[in-house]
């Protein structure tokens, strides 16, 4: 079976868009995570997800 024959136009284009979108989304969520952690640190002085603001 000749594998290179399988990579036709549709497959290249679909893979390309998938890589771009997936990369973008992963980057987005990582940046979100980072900024959230920074925000929590700013708010509470330490990274605690379920911090009690009544005591800080």
């Amino acid at each position, binding site marked *: 079976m000749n594998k290179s024959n399988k990579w036709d136009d549709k497959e290249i284009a679909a893979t*390309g*868009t998938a890589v771009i979108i997936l990369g973008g*989304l992963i980057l987005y969520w990582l940046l979100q995570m980072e900024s959230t952690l920074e925000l929590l640190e700013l708010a509470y002085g330490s990274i605690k997800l379920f911090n009690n603001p009544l005591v800080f």
Partner: protein
Amino acid sequence: MLNSLWSRYTRTLSLVLVLLLAIVLELFEVRTSIYGNALPFFEWMRNSFWFGVIGTNYGSFYATVQAVHLLSMAVIGGTVLAADLRLLGVIFRDIPSETLTRGTHKCFRISLTVAIATGIFCAAGVADKVYYMEVFWIKMLVLISGSCFVFLFKQPLLNSRPHDEINPWTLRLLAVTSLLIWFTVAATGRWIGFS
């Protein structure tokens, strides 16, 4: 030579052209200028009777439309999970993935249409707020690029031939991307409500 290349790789070359166009438009700050000029449209949505005014003055109607929006989101999730988890080989291993891909697509299309229609109404009620929200624009970007991905790239490839003739890693990549796209659209949508 160029002609045959174009006819053989129409989709791929179009994708490259669209990406180049996006970069050029970004360099000329077209996005920023569109953003500035879009404000009147959002104000119009907010003040037009059939969108914003009904949405803000009839709270129970607005909440009901939101419920329909959530229900269509649920059906989108169901169809996406069924089709993409099958592509990943997690569920439905005894049913061909071609059957699931084709079988769920119509339902997905209808529920996406309902979600977009109700979503426009919901956004119009708070159009003057969402305009300034980054998360709203992220959602729109992911929604538009995700829809293009599904309708112009993923579905045509999956319908073009039996799935065992497609590279298994391509199938997995398509499935993961689609799952993450619709998760992001839903999650950013929920976050609009909190902002």
